[in-house]
């Protein structure tokens, strides 16, 4: 029952995040989405995923709040009717997730450790992601260097 309620709340907060006009409210709704997702993972036994989701969500939201505050213009008051209709749409959208189900899949890879999976099966992905992150970091360093040079 708790999982169903959490999933309904998740869909409602996702709807609010998309449809609310004010940037800060939208970010608050997104924070709700992240928190509920993390709770959902934790309650279904995936503590590893829950911790990761919570950490990534917290980092993203801290920056989003700043940029949302920076980018938002005059606050818009949301009519009560619109808010209620958004919640109703969210509840309706979450109904299939609560009542429908898809049959479980067969076990394919069992007994593989995390290290084996990361380095033996997905080694190229890991290396490429490291390369992408390094390129981004280098790009930032070069841009800051050029800016400094230009400033002088």
């Amino acid at each position, binding site marked *: 029952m708790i*999982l169903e309620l959490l*999933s309904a709340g*998740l*869909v409602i907060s*996702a*709807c609010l*995040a*998309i449809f609310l006009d004010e*940037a800060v409210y*939208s*970010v608050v709704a*997104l924070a709700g*989405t*992240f928190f509920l*997702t993390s709770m959902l993972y934790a309650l*279904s036994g*995936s503590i*590893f*995923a829950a911790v*990761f*989701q919570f950490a*990534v969500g917290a*980092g*993203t939201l801290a*920056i*989003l709040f700043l*940029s*949302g505050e*920076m*980018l938002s213009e005059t606050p818009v008051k949301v009519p009560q009717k619109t808010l209620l209709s958004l919640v109703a749409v969210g509840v309706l*959208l*979450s109904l*299939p*997730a*609560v009542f*429908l*189900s*898809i049959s*479980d*899949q*067969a*076990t*394919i*890879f*069992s*007994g*593989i*450790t*995390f*290290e084996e*999976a*990361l380095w033996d*099966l*997905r080694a190229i*992905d*890991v290396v490429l*992601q490291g390369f*992408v*992150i390094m390129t*981004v970091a280098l790009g930032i360093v070069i841009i800051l260097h050029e800016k400094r040079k230009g400033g002088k």
Partner: protein
Amino acid sequence: MDYVILSLVLLAIGIYGLLTKRDLLKVFVSVELIATAATMNFVMLVPSLGKGLGEAFLVLAFATDTCVSGVILALLVIVHKKYGTSDISDLVKNEENKKDEVEA
């Protein structure tokens, strides 16, 4: 309750936002929702893939998601600083006006 359907619903909301919203911050929120839907699929697949492989997929998904968020946020701030707006329609209008001025 089924996570596949829940992630599909989240994906649909994200894609709807991506296609209809003109504000860059909303586009970012939509991308985050799509990423959450994808991650939820990985979490759901953990029992059938084996714990290690599922967690590896999850780590990769989170890393990609964080990189994408960083790049989109950087673009958002740069665009807002340069043009004073984060609305895609206004940005397109600005560019068209600039082109017209150059042609004239």
